[in-house]
């Protein structure tokens, strides 16, 4: 009996000592937080984790210390532990109840709304600070977790302003990512197009060559695929052009002229635009590769054309601006070996 009494006495003393130890540690933890030394909180907790791990006040301070040091994942773990260890039944009731509960009662009976807010906020921070180097499932997990806790916050009728702040952060991040992500879509274009060709008229009998200059103007239609984000647009397009040309000899001694001669061309190539000035104004370059064929007629005699069929490549400087779904685009550049500029003006329709 005496032994039992002694044991009880020892246990009581030990418990009292432990209680006083926890209280002291809690004060120290709070003091560290107040003095903005959150790293000390973790140290205090680690030194007495068996006792402090069972105390919700200690765990809350530990979570805050993680939060202040941007160790959001660890803070999330602690808040989850707080829910599971101290509020499991109430949490289950909220999760399983489809109807919103009255917030005032919950605030007075438990701290779940506070933990939900913290978990929503911290998951949102992790999602907002995520970047392309973070695996997609992890990023999605943070976003979905944040949205889940926002749902719980709404169920417990938490402050709408606070909920909106978190939602706005998530929306902003989604919007930014959306703007930077390249999206592909098709477009059609229709242009008025003009260029000049150099064609040679060769006398097979004498071997002499005469320079002919052709000026063509016509229209073109095309189809392209573009990939664009908020800053850049890359595209690949193809166009068919049908034009009529006037051609004459550049040598006054040679009398050769034809007008309204059909000339057709196919132009394909990649291009890019830069949208630095505005969402609606694009400036860029295109790298066209062309195939061109002209139906000029040979004069009577032993003549042949050189360059009546031509492959070429070059560059266009291009500007386009959007009015609704339609853009006005103008291009000025050169396709080699043409002797002069190649320009077009037309409209682009985005599907």
């Amino acid at each position: 009996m005496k032994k039992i009494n002694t044991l009880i006495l020892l246990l009581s003393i030990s418990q009292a000592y432990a209680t006083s130890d926890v209280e002291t540690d809690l004060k120290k933890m709070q003091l560290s937080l107040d003095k903005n030394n959150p790293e000390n909180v973790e140290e205090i907790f680690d030194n007495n984790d068996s006792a402090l791990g069972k105390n919700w006040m200690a765990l809350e301070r530990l979570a805050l210390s993680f939060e202040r040091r941007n160790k959001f994942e660890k803070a999330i773990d602690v808040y989850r532990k707080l829910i599971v260890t101290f509020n499991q039944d109430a949490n289950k009731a909220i999760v399983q109840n489809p109807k919103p509960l009255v917030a005032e009662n919950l605030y007075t009976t438990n701290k779940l709304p506070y933990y939900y807010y913290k978990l929503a906020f911290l998951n949102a921070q992790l999602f907002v600070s995520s970047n392309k180097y973070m695996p997609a499932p992890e990023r999605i997990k943070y976003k979905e977790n944040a949205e889940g806790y926002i749902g719980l916050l709404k169920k417990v009728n938490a402050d709408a302003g606070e909920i909106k702040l978190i939602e706005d952060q998530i929306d902003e991040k989604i919007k930014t990512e959306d703007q930077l992500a390249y999206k592909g879509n098709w477009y059609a274009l229709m242009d008025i197009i003009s260029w000049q060709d150099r064609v040679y008229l060769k006398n097979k009998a004498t071997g002499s060559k005469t320079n002919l200059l052709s000026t063509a103007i016509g229209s073109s239609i095309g189809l392209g695929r573009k990939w664009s984000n908020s800053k850049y647009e890359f595209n690949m397009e193809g166009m068919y052009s049908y034009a009529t040309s006037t051609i004459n000899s550049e040598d006054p001694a040679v009398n050769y002229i034809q007008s309204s001669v059909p000339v057709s061309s196919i132009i394909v190539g990649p291009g890019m635009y830069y949208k630095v000035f505005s969402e609606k104004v694009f400036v860029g370059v295109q790298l066209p590769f062309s195939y061109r064929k002209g139906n000029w007629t040979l004069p009577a005699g032993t003549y042949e054309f050189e360059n009546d069929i031509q492959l070429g490549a070059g560059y266009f400087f291009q500007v386009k601006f959007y009015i609704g779904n339609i853009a006005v685009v103008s291009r000025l550049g050169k396709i080699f070996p043409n002797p002069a500029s190649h320009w077009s003006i037309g409209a682009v329709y985005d599907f």
Partner: protein
Amino acid sequence: MNKAASLLTILLCSYLFSSKAYSYPHFISHGYNSCITCHYNPFGNGPINDYGRAVSGTAVSGREFYDEHKPEDLIASETAFFFKESTSKHFRPFIGFRGLLYKANLGQEGSKTDFINMQLDANLVAKFGEKDQWIMSGTFGYAPIPRALQNTAAGDAMKEYRTREHYIGYRPKPNFGIYFGLMDKPFGIRVVEHNSFSRITPQLTMDDQAHGMILHYSNPTFEAGLDAFVGNLLNKEDIRMKGMSATFEQTVFEKNRIGASFMTQKNTYLKMLSTAIHSRSQITHGTSVLFELGKVDKTPEGASPKRSEYYALLQNHIRTNRGLYFLNSVEYYKNNLDKNYRVRFGPGLQYFPFSKLELRTDVYNTRNFNQEATSKDRWDLLMQVHAWF
């Protein structure tokens, strides 16, 4: 060089070397729909008012040459005549200069470079009345004789030092004014480029002002003008263009203006009837598109046939950053007497490093389309410096 190319050369030479103080209709991109916001003349041109000076220093010009902490209102105050805010309520002096470095026929044999002093003007605006209802403006200075008129009787009659604008205006109400004097005729979009087909074709270039009376009405969404003119009284009677012009603009969809213009004028040798439609649109802040489509019927006295001329202008201004604009123009011109027509592409850069200075570079690629002959493209380079005080 074929006939069409020669004609083109004459037209370009005639009109490239000319200037006055211009208006900038593309500043609709900054939300300025009407010229009268910044100019004393309700249709632009001529000296800018105090507000216009402030806008030129703040919204329009760059900040690269200013201390980053310098307040905008201090920059605005330095835009006044010779950097000092006027102590007079009634008088506003103005001095303007434009010089042009012009290299014609780039890359061709015979290409040459000229520097032309296009304008050196002094102007004084006097305004009176409680709300400055009375305005008097007079400009006098140097202006070159147009090359097309050099060594001709008309050119010999012109003086290099002359006035190209003077008028008295009265605005009894803020939205209505009446002006008497020598002024540009209101018609179409008064673009800065006097070599543009939209200015050459209806004869609205550097020396086409006329004495007359202009009525101007404006409200926030509508603007109209009516001009009855008797020609420039400083010219000989037989070449004075007499007639009337009318123009209006209506705001549609908030940031766009559409308009139409009409003008009839004649002198002893020529009768002209001009019509045009136009639009000005703000695409985004600092970026605009101007479009004008016009027809001009010219009936010479005597046996010469009537000529109908058509033109189109599409001009895009893109503000790359504050003070710097990229310009992209496409122009079209045709007349019914031959099968020619020409198209001109004109990319350019316009830079306002700070208030009182504008630097501009344009490249023009002109292509002539002719059923009877084909000719090489023409390339021209124009570099302008424009200073005002």
